[in-house]
């Protein structure tokens, strides 16, 4: 966190109020300055493919809007009144108070304020998400920790086949809702019931309350959510499977299904039967692209840069290398990756495929990333999996830009996903539609 940041992407821990918004009928309550909620909403939801307010987001989020007199005299009473008002006005099943830089520095006793409401039986927890603690992925983990520690109770029984899924981070990863639902679908092929916790029809706080009943937790990400599944193991004894690669396309999705199937103790024959069917369908459609992808009248990319968070960078790199025959150029990991995970993540990129590895740079600073790419040897038509920050960079190096991570302002995202077999086809469509629209729309 000693870096300065040009071209900001991942906001701050308080950005995780977007996590709360994606829990059905949950209401975030910000104990924060007047501008925090509005800025973070625009940075994550609006600039994340125009995701909209959600149920109680955007300008509907209760906020104490702390001003100078609160900084001087404390804001605890104001927070108390705010929560009282929120309980009357907002139609919610669950409330999460989030602290901010201002409220943490001035030292308001938020635990005490919120504790009084919990004692009254109000379904409410609080998370200490001061912006200076880290980015919004960090905040996401802090929210989950708060709910787990303050609200969940151990369960005597386990529900057979129930799996809690931790993967794409709601509203922070622009394609999160499509991703989580695609993972749910993939698990259903194996007869497993995925508890995805966030988004449409995911069950709201009831789904969270069912977390301790799961047979196991599934973490699909290089490092985001690792603290969460470890906490759940410690607290409820639930084992976890850590699958670090977001499965995209034919090769990785089949590997993913095998890994989950084996972990869940599924019958090998049933598993292979499912995979065969899904792979056949995937290749049926992918086959359509062969003539276009092997023609040389237009400039099609064969090498790619990624400038995105580790989850997407790794998943996409695996897909492009192992399914599509691409070669990796620099892989720029943009979130605030804790030191202890950097070596492991670099290791994943060193072994993308036999004999194919990639250079990895961890930086939140777009200036550093731009300079590194501009100082790299030029290649013809590089593909850039990045964000709307890279439009000029792409122009300068003659690259083809496909926006996949914050900020994504050149596309509207409803339920699109890059996960699974379907997601692989979506990504191929996106890359070549972009290439064609640039070269065939004359």
């Amino acid at each position, binding site marked *: 966190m000693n*870096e300065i940041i*040009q071209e*900001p992407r991942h906001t701050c821990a308080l950005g995780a109020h977007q996590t709360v918004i994606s829990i059905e009928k949950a209401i975030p309550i910000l104990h924060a300055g*007047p501008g925090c909620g509005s*800025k973070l909403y*625009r940075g994550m939801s609006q600039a994340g493919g125009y995701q909209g307010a959600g149920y109680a987001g955007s300008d509907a989020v209760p*906020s104490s809007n702390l001003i100078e007199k609160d900084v001087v005299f404390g804001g605890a009473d104001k927070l108390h009144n705010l929560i009282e008002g929120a309980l009357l*006005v907002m139609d919610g099943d669950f409330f999460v108070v989030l602290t901010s830089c201002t409220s943490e520095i001035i030292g308001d006793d938020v635990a005490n304020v919120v504790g009084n409401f919990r004692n009254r039986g109000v379904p409410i927890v609080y998370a200490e998400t001061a*912006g200076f603690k880290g980015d919004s992925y960090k905040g996401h983990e802090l929210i989950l920790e708060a709910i787990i520690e303050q609200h969940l109770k151990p369960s005597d029984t386990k529900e057979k086949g129930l799996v809690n899924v931790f993967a794409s981070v709601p509203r922070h990863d622009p394609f999160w809702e499509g991703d989580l639902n695609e993972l749910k679908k993939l698990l259903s092929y194996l007869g497993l019931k995925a508890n995805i916790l966030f988004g449409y029809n995911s069950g709201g706080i009831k789904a969270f309350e069912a977390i301790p009943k799961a047979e196991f937790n599934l973490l699909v990400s290089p490092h985001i959510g690792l603290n969460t599944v470890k906490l759940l193991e410690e607290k409820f004894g639930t084992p976890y499977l850590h699958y670090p690669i977001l499965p995209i396309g034919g090769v990785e999705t089949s590997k993913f299904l095998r890994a989950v199937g084996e972990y869940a103790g599924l019958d090998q024959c049933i598993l292979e039967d499912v995979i065969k069917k899904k792979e056949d369908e995937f290749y049926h459609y992918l086959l359509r692209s062969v003539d276009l992808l092997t023609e040389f009248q237009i400039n099609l990319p064969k090498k790619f840069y990624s400038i995105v968070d580790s989850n997407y960078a790794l998943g996409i790199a695996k897909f492009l290398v192992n399914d599509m025959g691409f070669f990796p150029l620099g892989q720029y990991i943009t979130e605030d990756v804790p030191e202890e995970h950097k070596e492991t993540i670099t290791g994943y990129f060193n072994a993308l495929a036999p004999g194919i590895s990639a250079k990895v740079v961890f930086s939140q600073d777009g200036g550093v990333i731009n300079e590194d790419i501009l100082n790299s040897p030029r290649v013809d038509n590089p593909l850039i999996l990045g964000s709307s920050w890279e439009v000029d960079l792409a122009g300068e190096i003659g690259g083809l830009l496909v926006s996949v991570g914050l900020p994504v302002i050149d596309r509207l995202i409803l339920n699109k996903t890059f996960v699974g077999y379907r997601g692989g086809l979506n990504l191929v469509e996106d890359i070549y539609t972009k290439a064609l629209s640039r070269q065939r729309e004359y």
Partner: protein
Amino acid sequence: MSINLEVPAVPLREQRLGTLTGYDGDAKDLLGRSKEGCVKNRERTFTQCGSCSADQVMNLLLQLQDAAVVEHGPAGCSGDIPFRNANFRTGNRRLGLKVHNVKYINTNLSEKDTIYGGGEKLERGIREAYRRFSPKAVFVTTTCTSAIIGDDVEGICEALEEELGIPIVATICEGFRTNIWATGFDSANHSILRKIVKPPRKKQPDLINVISFTHRYHYENIFEQLGLRANHIVPFSTIEQLEHISEAAATVQYCETLGSYLAAGLEEYYGVHEIKSPAPFGIKATDEYLREIGRVFNKEKEVEEVIAKEKEKIAPRLEELRKDLTGKTAFIGAGGPIAYSIMALLNDLGIEVLGAHVWHHDQRFDNDDQRLDVLKFNVEHYGNFKLGVCNKQSYEVVNALNKYKPDIFISRHMATVWSAKLGIPSFLSVIEPSEMLYDGLIRYGELIWSTLKNPAFIKNISKHSKLPYTDWWFEQDTFSFLGGDADE
């Protein structure tokens, strides 16, 4: 009132302009009592996310062509930056300027910095901004965190200004200074007046400063017809352009909230006359606006010709639109003067304004001249209307919409999804405000017409969605969370 350019922080609107964020009543009452400056603000005990000064500072300073902004704060304070970049690029394209990213650096204050101070990072941020962007000036903006931990932003700026040889301007705009986020415009304009604007080399008698966002192409033609050169300023201007705004003969603006402070400062320090008229929204205000420009520039005859010609151009379509829209009802949610300006447009189109919620209300302006008062002008010409001041509280707006049930909701800065859920067609009158001058009335009318004529999208959405509010809330008075006078 007098503007003091010696201090880095602009005085707050609460003190300068008697600005309100809580009021429930009607336009005549507010206007009458504002004249004496005696309306006390009322605060609420339940609030939703507002906005902050730092946000509006970026609206102006970040969208300068060749200046850099270093925001001294945690990374989340940059939440507005990606979308501002989007608007900056789109605006540049529309204005025919070079499209490029904003020149921005955030100092990414960490927990450790809140203990040991963030001065070293700020210095690094400024130096890197200088190296990466080769800017003509660097604006250093403060945040809640940098202000509470007490970093010496002004001192660091002064030291580096000497070393780097370009203006390094401390812009004081931490969010907790005030809940009146329009203060951010004043902070930005204060920085420009204090450190960028130079005394005139030579007055340019045909130059008129026009303060607005991206609508140069809507008004340029009118000024050309009058033989005037429009100097489009803040945002989208260059530092060199701003250095010489003191040479213009006059300043006009799109909205008194945006440029009140800059226009008054230019008049006080450099004798640049602020055109004393309401902003040009609707036929009557546009008449007044152009005539006042005519008087100031001694072009009364030319102005009358332009007025006649422009009015003739819009007459046939205006009549058709009026036929279709007369009898429709509307509710407005927008910033102070803009909401009053929109009210004039709606009246000119034959639409009945059931009420308006404005985000804040200034009881006076920096140039304390009644002729600038859009609300006064419109009440005199169009009559009274129900008015609330709500600091962008969407629960209050939704409550009011549910009571008034207008045919259309016109929003600025507030999500339109809430009215959609109520089945009320609406549009966000913000990114491309094309409603100025006579032909702006037609553009606005067309927008309203297309919003009302086929509301299928909104009607379908409303059948399949739910608002995040309790039934209890919809039964309450809209302003039931407003307390008594703030200072009592």
